[in-house]
């Protein structure tokens, strides 16, 4: 492993434009997307999101932070094809998104392991349902079990595993599908700090190995600052991007970057923006 200093490349202090340089290939794109929800028992609608323009570039790690209820998960659902925007368009690999597109994998915050299946069957479920050849399923599942440190627990049921291990099962189930776009909705939200740091390292490792594009929704600024190439800061409802921070990390990086001055700078900048929005959510709109 290279030294921590070599993981960092010099970058401009400010990069507030939603779109990175045009030379990078667009992978998933939101154009002028809004989302409104109907209020239960009323004809009123509330404005949850947008209008938002956002381009995820091929192979980048993009995180979204924002105050509670700002529409982060809605944004992810729209990228995943799990929710339709009220207006605007979504595309993935140049095609309009209608339903969940092929090549997209999602890991949710809530435990989504199947309690009636052991770890091996959980991980291979999606492949079996897609009609993948048995030998190929076994090969990919064996690899994922090793990669995610689950080899010794292949026959265990989710009820016998800790929260962190169950989340790794869900990540492995997504990984074996070889998605080109991985969407993570606060996947480490229920884990303790040290497990989150280690899971973050594993996530970076799998991101490097798969070259997939990653969108991470998180409420943890340090997690976003550590893992991402770019971090989008969202405003309180309706969710809009108020800043996009380029972290400037090298692709070869791990959790040791948390001890660098640059990490502190990125974190401070994220918090500076987010503090105001969080105070608005708490009803302290002037941000004092």
């Amino acid at each position, binding site marked *: 492993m290279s030294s921590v200093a070599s993981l960092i490349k010099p970058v401009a202090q400010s990069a507030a434009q939603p779109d990175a340089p045009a030379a990078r290939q667009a992978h998933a794109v939101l154009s002028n997307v809004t989302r409104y929800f109907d209020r239960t028992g009323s004809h009123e609608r509330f404005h949850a999101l947008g209008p938002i323009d956002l381009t995820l570039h091929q192979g980048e790690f993009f995180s979204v932070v924002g105050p509670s209820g700002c529409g982060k998960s809605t944004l992810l659902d729209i990228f995943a094809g799990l929710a339709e925007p009220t207006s605007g368009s979504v595309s993935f690999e140049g095609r309009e998104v209608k339903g969940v597109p092929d090549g997209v994998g999602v890991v949710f915050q809530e435990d989504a392991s199947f309690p009636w299946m052991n770890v091996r069957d959980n991980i291979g479920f999606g492949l079996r349902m897609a009609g993948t050849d048995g030998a190929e399923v076994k090969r990919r599942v064996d690899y994922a079990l090793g990669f995610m440190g689950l080899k010794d627990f292949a026959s265990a049921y989710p009820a016998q*595993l800790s929260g962190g*291990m169950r989340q790794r099962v869900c990540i492995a189930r997504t990984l074996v599908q070889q998605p080109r776009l991985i969407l993570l909705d606060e996947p480490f939200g229920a884990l303790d700090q040290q497990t989150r740091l280690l899971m973050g390292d594993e996530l970076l490792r799998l991101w490097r190995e798969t070259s997939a594009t990653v969108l991470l929704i998180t409420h943890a600024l340090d997690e976003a600052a550590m893992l991402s190439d770019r971090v989008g800061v969202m405003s309180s409802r309706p969710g809009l991007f108020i800043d996009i921070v380029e972290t400037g990390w090298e692709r070869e990086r791990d959790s040791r970057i948390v001890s660098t001055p640059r990490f502190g700078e990125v974190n401070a900048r994220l918090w500076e923006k987010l503090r105001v929005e969080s105070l608005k959510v708490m009803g302290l709109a002037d941000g004092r």
Partner: protein
Amino acid sequence: MAADTASVRVSPRRPRLSRADGVRLTVVVVFIALVELLCRTGVIALSVMIAPSAMAAHCVQILRAGTFDHDIAVSLGNIVAAAILSVLLGFAVGVLLHSAPRARAAIEPLLSAYYAVPTFVFYPVFIVILGVGAAPIIAIAVLLAVVSMVTATLNGLDRIPRSLHKTALVLRLSPLQSALRIKLPAALPYLFTGMKLSVAYAFIGVIASEFILSGEGLGYAIGYAYNNFQNRDMYALMFLVLVLVTAINMVLNTIDRRLQARRRR
């Protein structure tokens, strides 16, 4: 990840008898022993009740002699038919109501009040419609048992985690694959609770209906023995019903516990 690894539990051993289990067992044993004592000492007259040990001995005797084999077979056949019909019908109605929220909102309060209705008052109606025989007995038992399955199905479908619904979409499963491979197994522990209740209600419905609606079956045989002062037969058959219900419940509870244990987080 060492901490994670360490948190994996070893396979659970068969649990020992808990303190509560011990107390429960003691209460039952003491009660039976007390009844035995009261019967044996003549405090309870032989014409009123025979001792539990005599009930068990006579039950073995009539089973060996095959005296009531036909009645036992008829009752068990009716119970199985009523339980299967209740489970299938209850599940179908539950799924339909779950898929139609407006209909559910209108009907669910009726389901909550359902057990306030004495189902047996409908027996003349069933005789008129279905005639005499197994059909009205099974119909009353189904009427009694079906609602617990409807309620359990609604409860089970409600409790499927949202993340599993979304996972089915992300894995691009067809509606049938999603229903059979995710929703059904996810709801199964709740459905099984409904099945357990349906079997219990089917048992009650069939035995009780046979008292008034039948010329055969365990309920009829108990009633016949009662009317003819055949105390030994009556108590032996009652003992048999209790043993059957207990045995079936124990089997169903064991399966239920295993299903629930696998769901535990």
